[in-house]
């Protein structure tokens, strides 16, 4: 107690020899640009250039005229900017079958993507809800088959689905393709929703049951409003996934319903006529525009979506 006053102040540096005072002090001096920084940022910038280059080439090519493309180099910016390739790609580029451009494929893709996304998310979220909150005997067996099924190559199941769809008269139609997208979206989406719902506080579900809410009441009044982020993640996953699909589009629809990716491939790889690289690149950008837009707008949610889909799937 008596030494209280003495200990009160923490600074008593009398023991530090005066010679030390001259030694190193403060932050360790660093070169403004260390070797490590150069290596880290250098590599990242080179990598970024590699990833950006194709996008850049796509854009500049689509803005050039064919004569310029023939003589010039693919990296040089357009001397004369023209939007003609874009117009042609959209409205009059030819596949082997027709010359409607990409617009037909675009609207087909919209008509496929919108209902497929809505229905697949509705079905999968209800599955996930039933699996996490209303477990019944045998549910896990179906779920396991579903998850294992996610790894089976699509090619294995294509033909049986063709037969089933033909039997119920939907083969070749848009509704048939919507069903296919719902089926193949189910494993990952169900897992996504099941895990999310399982992470919600169980007390909430119990309280709602005590209050007398049933299966659908709890789903619509409690689960859906509480889970908007995961619905957005699922939507991002589905919109990009379905828009980018090629295989199902080409297998399950008639040519007049071909989605944009199939239409694009038919335009670019059509063997007839002279290759119009500028039109091809404009068409390619147009096809990639929707998922790219989703990607740039959604940002972190996209990352979360693919992480959730990929890591668990």
């Amino acid at each position: 107690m008596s030494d209280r006053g003495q200990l009160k102040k923490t600074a008593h540096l009398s023991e530090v020899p005066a010679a030390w005072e001259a030694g190193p002090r403060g932050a360790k001096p660093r070169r403004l640009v260390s070797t490590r920084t150069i290596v880290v940022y250098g590599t990242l910038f080179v990598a970024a250039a590699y990833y950006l280059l194709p996008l850049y080439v796509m854009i500049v090519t689509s803005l050039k005229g064919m004569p310029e493309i023939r003589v010039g180099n693919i990296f040089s910016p357009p001397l004369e900017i023209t939007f003609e390739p874009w117009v042609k790609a959209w409205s009059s580029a030819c596949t082997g079958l027709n010359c409607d451009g990409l617009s037909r494929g675009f609207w087909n893709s919209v008509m496929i993507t919108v209902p497929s996304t809505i229905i697949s998310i509705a079905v999968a979220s209800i599955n996930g809800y039933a699996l996490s909150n209303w477990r019944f005997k045998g549910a896990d067996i179906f779920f396991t088959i579903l998850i294992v099924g996610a790894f089976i190559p699509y090619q294995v199941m294509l033909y049986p689905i063709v037969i089933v769809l033909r039997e119920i008269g939907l083969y070749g139609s848009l509704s048939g393709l919507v069903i296919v997208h719902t089926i193949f979206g189910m494993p990952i989406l169900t897992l996504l929703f099941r895990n999310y719902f399982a992470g919600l506080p169980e007390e909430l579900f119990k309280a709602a049951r005590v209050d007398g809410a049933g299966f659908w009441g709890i789903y619509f009044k409690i689960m859906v409003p509480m889970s908007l982020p995961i619905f957005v993640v699922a939507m991002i996953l589905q919109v990009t996934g379905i828009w980018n699909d090629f295989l199902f589009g080409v297998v399950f629809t008639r040519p007049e319903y071909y989605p944009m990716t199939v239409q694009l491939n038919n335009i670019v790889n059509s063997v007839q006529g002279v290759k119009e690289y500028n039109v091809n690149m404009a068409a390619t950008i147009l096809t990639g525009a929707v998922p790219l837009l989703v990607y740039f707008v959604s940002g972190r949610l996209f990352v979360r979506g693919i992480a959730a889909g990929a890591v668990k799937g």
Partner: protein
Amino acid sequence: MTGQATGRATTRAHPGRPGRLTRNLSAKIASIPMMLTAVVVFLGGTLWTVLYSFTSSKLLPRLKFVGLDQYERLWAAPRWLVSIENLAIYGIFSLIFSMVIGFVLAALMDQKIRFENTFRTIFLYPFALSFIVTGLVWQWLLNPEHGVQSVVRAMGWAGFSFDPLYNSSIVIYGILIAALWQGTGLVMCLMLAGLRGIDEDIWKASRVDGIPMWKTYLFVVIPMMRPVFVTTLVIIASGIVRVYDLVVAQTSGGPGIASEVPAKYVYDYMFQAQNLGQGFAASTMMLITVAIIIVPWAYLEFSGGRKRV
């Protein structure tokens, strides 16, 4: 005590107790699509295809069993052998390169850098694009008359030759480049998430121990990230087996049959050549390939894993 026991007995004998089937009825009805998908499509469809791979089905599926005929024919077909060889080369290289590039990028991104979000956006955007778009862009970039080759030649390096899409011996590497461009961003994201999951104290401990950064990565961090590596491996591998659209868009399997892959073989025989039996046999082989990858992983992950911890 007795009261409690009686109460329980009454419950058991309660006449109004719902039966087994009607309990959770709404949940069961709501799960019908899932059950149908699981049983009819995934299980039924797979078994159906495997079964019909032993038949002589041509234009239409017929249950006329011919044993392993289709498989013998398959493994004698040059196009199938090329497909398998391509898949092996493409698979091994894309596994190695996407893992290495993905990890290196992730490690660089983890150095508390500026503009992290910008870099991530750049590395990942190709993943949002379809394989068709990817294939077409790289078809253009690798075009020998206008693309990279001609640009390098124009820079004065006249003898430079890089035309994978027109050279059957290296065409698969042209596809590999495009696939890596599209997919490494995802690997980077998975690895970065793994790196961020490493306890900050581990890094501090290794600094106090005086272990150089690269040794810490090699001997401490990478072993710790084993689960991330395994998961990534499974994801990449199951994607590799499915590769189809990329080849269709970039080379259509050419030049000749030089860049054919199994998934394309299946499609062509099922829907173009009207030779269903070959398609079924080839798709069954794909299934077996996936099983070879998945089964050991699932075994490690779900049975051995628990014991280890």
